């Protein structure tokens, strides 16, 4: 029986909302005891002691919506490289997206991911499957078989299902299975061809743009379908203030709805694109500063439940193109924590609230036991120093793709070690 004792740690408990000194005992991959203050529960016989030196110990990040290049684009990211990147970033569970080549839309393809993940990745990998075949929005996939094969949720990613009949049937069927649908709220007509948010900046740069209202329109439509079908629904990225009242009403009505946002929309705005920097091209496009502020506030109050990295590896060739032609997306697994700690250092959000959105809420939404600093929870933990200054160097990332918008950024916060089921999977040099 392996035992591990974390002593002298600043424990971040997102469930209790506390941030205080204490120690944690881990036995056989599970948290078995937590003691507050300096009063360690004694050193059990044979336990390995980790002196945390007052640094933060929090439940590991559960990241919904990680793009891995397997199958089809392994040169951009493999399950192995994504796993290493996740471990280095304090992410203990990655929930993969099915927008691969081909899409993960059959139980066979899903099994391939699970098998490869077990071999290659040091962290937990939970796959999502496509909601419609080929993510084409026409026929639903074998939702039941896919669930049996281990799909934790269903999503067509950034492909919005235009045909509401198709979507309503898929939702109705998913409801009967108790399956979770993850969708990208966006009006597909208004947003077609857009690579920026409409406004002064997009007009000055001459970029095709979409009104922020398109997000609310997509969300409004989906909320009506949720009311109709009763499905469990998660909006992958809410990024505009205009969408928030609709979300709030839907929650107050008791619908089974949660919402997420991305690290980029919380920490960057449209002006960061500057002179057509394609590493800042993401989907949906970066928003105004007013929108960014209201999204931070929504995360703080809990209206937005979950923060994801929306990790989207792209190679140099896909990014070194004119802005409109360049591929969308940014890597985020390794940089998420230091980047988000900007919000903590700027007094916008405290650490328990941050980890509520990063670890607790995604675990709850997927029905996982992780994400808690509590007895009985799996010992998926991240030890980090929130104050240590770091300079991001994209060529030092573990990801095969280096498309981070934070290259050269001076940030505060460093992951010291990551544990999955009590096993150390990463330790910083």
């Amino acid at each position: 029986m392996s035992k591990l004792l974390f002593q002298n740690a600043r424990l971040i408990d997102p469930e209790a909302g506390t941030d205080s000194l204490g120690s944690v005992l881990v036995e056989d991959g599970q948290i078995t005891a937590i003691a507050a203050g300096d009063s360690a529960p004694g050193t059990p016989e044979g336990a390995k002691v980790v002196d945390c030196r007052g640094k933060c110990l929090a439940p590991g990040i559960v990241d919904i919506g990680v793009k891995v290049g397997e199958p089809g684009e392994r040169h951009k990211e493999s399950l192995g490289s994504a796993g290493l990147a996740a471990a280095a970033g304090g992410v203990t569970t990655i929930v993969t997206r099915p927008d691969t080549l081909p899409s993960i839309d059959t139980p066979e393809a899903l099994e391939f991911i699970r098998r490869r993940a077990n071999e290659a990745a040091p962290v937990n990998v939970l796959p999502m499957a496509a909601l419609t075949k080929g993510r084409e929005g026409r026929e639903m996939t074998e939702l039941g078989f896919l669930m049996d094969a281990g799909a934790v949720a269903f999503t067509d990613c950034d492909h919005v299902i235009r045909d509401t009949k198709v979507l309503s049937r898929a939702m109705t069927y998913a409801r009967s299975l108790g399956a979770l649908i993850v969708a990208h709220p966006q009006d597909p007509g208004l947003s077609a061809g857009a690579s920026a948010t409409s406004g002064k900046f997009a007009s000055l740069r001459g970029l095709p743009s979409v009104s922020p209202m398109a997000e609310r329109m997509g969300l409004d439509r989906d909320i009506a379908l949720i009311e109709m079908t009763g499905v469990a629904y998660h909006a992958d990225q809410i990024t505009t203030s205009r969408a928030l009242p609709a979300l709030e009403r839907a929650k107050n009505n008791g619908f089974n709805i949660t919402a997420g946002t991305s690290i980029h929309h919380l920490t960057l705005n449209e002006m960061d694109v500057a002179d057509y920097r394609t590493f800042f091209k993401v989907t949906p496009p970066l928003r105004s500063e007013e929108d960014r502020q209201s999204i931070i506030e929504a995360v703080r109050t809990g209206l937005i439940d979950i923060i994801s990295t929306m990790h989207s590896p792209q190679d140099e060739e896909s990014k070194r193109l004119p802005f409109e032609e360049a591929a969308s997306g940014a890597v985020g697994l390794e940089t998420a924590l230091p980047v988000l700690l900007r919000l903590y250092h700027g007094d916008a959000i405290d650490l328990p609230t941050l980890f509520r959105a990063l670890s607790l809420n995604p675990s709850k939404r997927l029905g996982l036991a992780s994400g808690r600093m509590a007895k009985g929870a799996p010992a998926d933990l991240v030890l980090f120093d929130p104050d240590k200054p770091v300079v991001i160097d994209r060529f030092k990332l573990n990801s095969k793709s280096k498309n981070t918008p934070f290259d050269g950024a001076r940030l505060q916060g460093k992951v010291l070690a990551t544990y999955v089921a009590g096993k150390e999977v990463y330790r910083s040099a």
Partner: protein
Amino acid sequence: MRFDHRHLLGIEPLRPDEITTLLDLADRYVTLSRQREKHANVLAGLTQINMFFENSTRTQASFELAGKRLGADVMNMAMQASSIKKGETLIDTAMTLNAMHPDLLVVRHPHSGAVDLLAQKVNCAVLNAGDGRHEHPTQALLDALTIRRSKGRLHRLNIAICGDIAHSRVARSNILLLHKMENRIRLIAPPTLMPSGIEHFGVEVFHDMREGLKDVDVVMMLRLQKERMDGGFIPSEREYYHRYGLDQDKLDCAKPDAIVMHPGPMNRGVEIDGTLADDINRSVIQEQVEMGVAVRMAAMDLLARNLRARPKEVIA
């Protein structure tokens, strides 16, 4: 007299005094171009490559003539027919060209920002001949020179820009330039052809053409692309002409000595009345073409001076 730029990618980075410097030099090239012997040797020994990823007859001819009058070796590359079709990326094309040691690269591309991207990868001077909906700096400069010669000044004028502003790089560059030179700018277009956030550009927005043209000194018309006419952005060509086409009746709202401009090529009977376009008392459209060559000569001359002043460097 200063002009501290390696490239001419847009109006946005230019200072008012630099614009004046360029226009002053262009004035001298107008004089030169009107002589029988039109040659100057300021670009002798330099190589100019015109790379047009989008169809153009007028702008390409203007740049070619400007280069030849200044003694450069000019080469035209029709990019639509060549490597792009073979799947080569813009950067690869740039690197290939760079290896041929051009000194001046004139680029037009259908995507905004593409010329900026290319300029980062070559060690010659790059001139933007139009990128997507972003900028078309030499067009704005030739318009400014036309206005200055015709009105005697380039400040405190009321200038109306009418037409498809949303999709126009000409409009963006003109708004930036005329704003820097302290003019009052009015934009006239149906709301579907007005870019978002335009109210933050320091302009007045009009949807009624007569109201917008009231007492202006300059009327700049823009070309309406054929593909935008059929119900997508406006109901029909004839409704557009009725409401936003420039005819004598609407022009009467402007000052009696107001000039009429158009970047060409014109759609007669769509955005402008044919007779008005030919009226030598009002229309300066032919002068614009003439100023185009002079402005491009001046721009290439200034960039070549900066090129010669700088030690030759190599971009890996």
